[in-house]
């Protein structure tokens, strides 16, 4: 009897072990398959052009070289592209954090006539396809002379983030209200409560929004593509995408460009991973 039970426990353990091994094998295979394109990108970027076209292809560059990266940065404009991207991203993220947190605070904590209707209107804008607004937006920007400046990429992003407002408002609801009540009784103004209590407590949600809006801004292609056609105004994405036509297909150089374009988001992602995951799953659960 007892021996049988011991045997059963042992076989259960074996089963579990087997299941774990199978899971690991499957995940390793799938994970490598998902990562292989990146490997290929990085490896090609360190190859000479001659080696890139070798058959059979080499997994690791035989004579690793920084030639492609050198060519990239020798093009003086590439540094400017990087600067433009950073500038646009920082300004749009900063602005978005301020406007969204202000609005989220009001929608979550203050009471004013028409609040719920306004919130629904704000939310409904998330469903509007960009294609519907981009043409008139272009025309308006053309009229006010903002085409071929960075303003059309910064100002709308700063001021119209329904997603950010929604995310921060949901987060506000999970915060205790007692602190704010106490502050109000002590005579703190609404702005004071926002500034001194809500904002510090919102930090994790602000980080989530920050990560997302940084990636959206950095990776944005359509916007810069529509609004910019002077080369010195290009973002890195636009630079790499458009310059690909001028560079006769030099794959090491194109891959080096892709690596450089990917590195900043990769860093932000690796450092702030947990905020990133939370940001995806939040609207997902709601949807």
């Amino acid at each position: 009897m007892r021996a049988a039970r011991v045997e059963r426990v042992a076989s259960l353990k074996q089963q579990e072990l087997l299941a774990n091994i199978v899971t690991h094998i499957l995940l390793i295979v799938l994970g490598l398959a998902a990562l292989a394109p990146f490997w290929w990108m990085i490896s090609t970027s360190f190859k000479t052009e001659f080696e890139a076209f070798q058959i059979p292809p080499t997994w690791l560059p035989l004579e690793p070289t920084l030639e492609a990266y050198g060519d990239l940065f020798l093009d003086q404009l590439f540094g400017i592209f990087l600067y433009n991207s950073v500038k646009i991203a920082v300004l749009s993220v900063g602005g978005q954090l301020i406007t969204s947190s202000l609005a989220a605070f009001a929608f979550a904590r203050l009471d004013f006539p028409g609040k719920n209707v306004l919130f629904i209107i704000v939310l409904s804008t998330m469903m509007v396809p960009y294609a519907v607004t981009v043409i008139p937006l272009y025309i308006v920007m053309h009229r006010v002379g903002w085409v071929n400046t960075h303003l059309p990429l910064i100002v709308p992003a700063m001021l119209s983030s329904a997603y950010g407002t929604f995310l921060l408002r949901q987060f506000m609801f999970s915060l205790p209200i007692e602190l704010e009540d106490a502050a109000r009784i002590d005579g703190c103004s609404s702005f004071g409560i926002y500034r001194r209590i809500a904002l510090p407590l919102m930090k994790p949600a602000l980080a989530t929004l920050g990560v997302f809006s940084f990636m959206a801004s950095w990776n944005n292609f359509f916007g810069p593509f529509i609004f910019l056609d002077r080369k010195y105004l290009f973002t890195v994405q636009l630079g790499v995408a458009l310059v690909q036509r001028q560079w006769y297909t030099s794959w090491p150089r194109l891959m080096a460009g892709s690596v450089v374009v990917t590195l900043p988001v990769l860093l932000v992602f690796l450092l702030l991973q947990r905020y990133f995951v939370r940001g995806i799953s939040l609207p997902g659960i709601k949807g």
Partner: protein
Amino acid sequence: MAQSQVLTRLVAKTKTREIRWHRYEGYLFVAPLLIGIVAFIFLPIAASLYMSFHTWDMVSPPELVGLKNYARLVSRDRIFWKVLGNTFKYAGWIIVPSVTFPLILAALLDRPIRLRYLYRLAFFLPLVTSVVAVGLMFRWLYDGEFGLINYTLSWVRIDGPNWLSDVFWAMPAVAMVTVWQGLGYNMVLYLAGLQGIPDHLYEAATIDGAGPFSRFFQITIPLLTPTMFFILVMSVIGTFQTFGLIYVMTQGGPINSTNVYIYYLWQMAFGSSKMGYASAMAWILAMVIFTITMIQVRLARLWVHY
């Protein structure tokens, strides 16, 4: 006595004034957002509707043509129909793999195994990479002569096509890139869905003698149908908004075989300066997206277990 009365009245007055002010204070907080939304979303929407009833090349003044733009799109523009068909084809290639692959990944990663974080990371990387980098990367991978994909296929004696310049293969090739990029996102949605399934259901099923497979198909899948439904809707809507990937990988070619909705819209608006015509296209797109969502919501009632 009188003095204190005056005082209380004064206090009451300032208080009501304060309260009245407080009632509207919220507007100050939402003002920047609302100004932005009106200026950069609502006004453009109105302008776009207005323009869709005009022809306009941005040089001469707009000319009112009523519904002519819409009529011409639907009845005379052959490329428009081709592009609409392409977009649905694109969605068709995407749907099944984007619903199934991430589910497999999520099911594998839902168990408390070692290195879970590392595995998850691998599936997130495609998501955070820009369409430009992804597009270039895959153009190189799909290269007919020197691409890694055809080289790998040659191991099993398959002579791969020149993917991106083949009228048939270009679309599925682009679609697989989209699936690859969406893996991590859809996986997280599934993981969130899996966490919402109560453990006692599995325990009860185990006691009743259900094995891992029947637990997966009888409990997990039915309870994940809302997530599947969400992924389905988002994938289809996503195909109608793809631009960058097409621009970088194929530019709509060969012979318009990967020309999808937004790409054609862009060609009309900025290539041919037909702003009114493109606006009409944008409105048709808005209606298509709305209809798809509605149809899917209706269908969902039949098979989604909430």
